[in-house]
């Protein structure tokens, strides 16, 4: 679990100094800059941050699905079970995708192919990776629909995506993702497009399936509540860089980066009591810097930070380590008040 010592059991997924570059009109931009984290077998980790912080890019990079031809992994390793996915061939990545590592997406309304029934779409993955016959795959598709709690799965299996509600479609996406019992499931904002009540159901489903299948989950979200509910560890991303990492409990109780602190203050229900010190919700002033400013050799959060000093404008902070693998990329992490 500890990112900083090599003594613990080898991680299932170990990302080391990952740098992802995107070619834009204004030049090459590092949308992920020196990102490292470990995910143990059956573990779960959340990536948090505002839009445009590189969370989804992280997910796409892990899957080898960076936008082509603009994006590429410029440096670093993605070690999955000891194999470096950053250097794997396309054919090898296709074997892994959907089989060892799966992904579910933000927009269930558009992530199913409208011209095939949901049964065909689940069966497709089973036939591709497990060589099942049409008939076996169809039968298994019904079981999978049942396992994600779609009512009357033997009838629903022949439905087209447009016949399902958003929540049901996301369940189908989860069924497709888990069809081959992957070792890692990447959930990229899986509930953003859904009603609040349905969100809770999807999170319950993911938690339940994780317990049953032992699949490790990488949750990408901007919902701190979801993080608290779903994950043991979290990584806070800002402008393509890791701002803070640690156990969810530690990070929420004692954020070591002003950005994390800002995110937490912007959420109503995370702190047990609203005290006189914190009478109302706070927002973080400003916005994420434009892509062109990514990669500058200073603290990219400095322009929005209350406690920024000249040092923050002049140099890029390194990682400061705390207990339990808690780390923060802020010069003043030690001095942060809880």
């Amino acid at each position, binding site marked *: 679990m500890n990112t900083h010592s090599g003594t613990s059991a080898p991680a299932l997924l170990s990302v080391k100094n990952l740098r992802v570059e995107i070619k834009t009109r204004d030049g090459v931009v590092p949308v992920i800059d020196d990102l490292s984290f470990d995910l143990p077998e059956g573990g779960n980790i959340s990536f948090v941050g505002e839009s445009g912080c590189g969370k989804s890019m992280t997910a796409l990079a892990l*899957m080898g*699905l960076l936008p*082509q*031809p603009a994006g590429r992994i410029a440096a670093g390793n993605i070690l999955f079970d000891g194999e470096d996915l950053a250097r794997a061939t396309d054919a090898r990545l*296709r*074997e*892994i*995708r*959907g*089989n060892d590592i*799966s*992904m579910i*997406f*933000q*927009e269930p309304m*558009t*992530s*199913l*192919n*409208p*011209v095939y029934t949901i049964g065909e779409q689940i069966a*497709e*993955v089973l036939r*591709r*990776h497990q060589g099942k016959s049409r008939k076996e795959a169809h039968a298994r598709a019904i079981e999978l629909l049942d396992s994600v709690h779609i*009512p*009357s799965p033997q*009838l*629903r299996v022949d439905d*087209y995506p*447009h*016949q399902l*509600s*958003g*929540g*049901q479609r996301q369940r189908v*996406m989860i069924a*497709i*993702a888990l069809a081959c019992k992957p070792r890692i499931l990447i959930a990229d904002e899986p509930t953003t497009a859904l009603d609040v*009540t*349905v969100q809770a*159901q999807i999170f319950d489903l993911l938690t339940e399936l994780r317990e049953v299948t032992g699949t490790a989950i990488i949750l990408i979200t901007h919902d701190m509540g979801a993080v608290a509910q779903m994950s043991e560890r979290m990584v806070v991303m800002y402008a393509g860089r890791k701002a803070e990492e640690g156990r969810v409990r530690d990070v929420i109780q004692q954020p070591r980066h002003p950005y994390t602190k800002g995110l937490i203050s912007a959420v109503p229900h995370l702190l047990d009591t609203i005290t006189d010190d914190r009478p109302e919700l706070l927002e973080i002033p400003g916005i994420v810097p434009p892509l062109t400013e990514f990669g500058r050799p200073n603290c990219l959060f400095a322009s929005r930070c209350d406690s920024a000093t000249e040092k923050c404008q002049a140099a890029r902070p390194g990682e400061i380590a705390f207990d339990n693998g808690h780390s923060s990329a802020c010069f003043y992490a030690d001095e942060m008040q809880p």
Partner: protein
Amino acid sequence: MNESVPVNTSDNIRARHPMAEAFEMFMGNYAAVAALIVLILIILAAIFGPMLYPTDPFEMVWAPFSPPGAEGFLLGTDYLGRDMLAGLLTGARVSLAIGLAAAFMSVFIGITIGALAGFYRGWIEEILMRITEFFQVLPTLLFSMVIVALFGASLPIITFAIGIVSWTAVARITRSEFMRIRELEYVTASRSTGASNAKLIFSVILPNALPPIIVQAALMVGSAILFEAGLSFLGLSDPNVVSWGQIIGSNRQYILDASFTVTIPGVAIFVTVLAISLVGDGLNDALNPRLRRR
């Protein structure tokens, strides 16, 4: 709440397959339905006509220029005394066959080039689209005349000559549909389950890109028939087979003396192409969601 409801809610009954909706939309377009009926009659006449009316269209059966109805020849005879009705029925086969084959060929070339360009982008797209533009700016009639003149006026060559100049529209439509659809989430989702590029092109993107291509293909059958008529009119037709354009072409000197020899096959072409266009328009209205919502 939607999540736990049983299967048959009114919501589920109302959410119908998009193709069922398109079919209903088409059936509500009376012009298109009428055109479709006419088209089916023409196709039936082309298939069964020559069997039911087995006169040889090349045989001189009567005096030249017998007007329609005279001497038992329903549509009269042409400048060599050949039966016009027999020519029209046999010619229907050739005209429709060339129209279909040429449209099929241009759809095949167009989809291949458009799909590769729209899917892979980058230098592949650059090369393929420059080739497409090259074919687009060629004067089409002249180019196909050159091909027919060089390689001989046989049916396969004529079909090829028509197909090779008319695929560019399909290629451009296919490319733009691929460029749009490849960015959609379900394509990324398919990729994330390990689908290969071939799989993505043919079974994920292509089925979703088909509606506008189908419309274009339907219209292309009509324009291929016209094209063939044009070539035949200019004398570039296979002398061993009868087609509508060829009947017009061979009788064109007598247009003032016996106008029916030119008018009758002309009307046949007109009605057929009009019917195909109306069906194509009907398909377009039915398959294009933007028009459907009006």
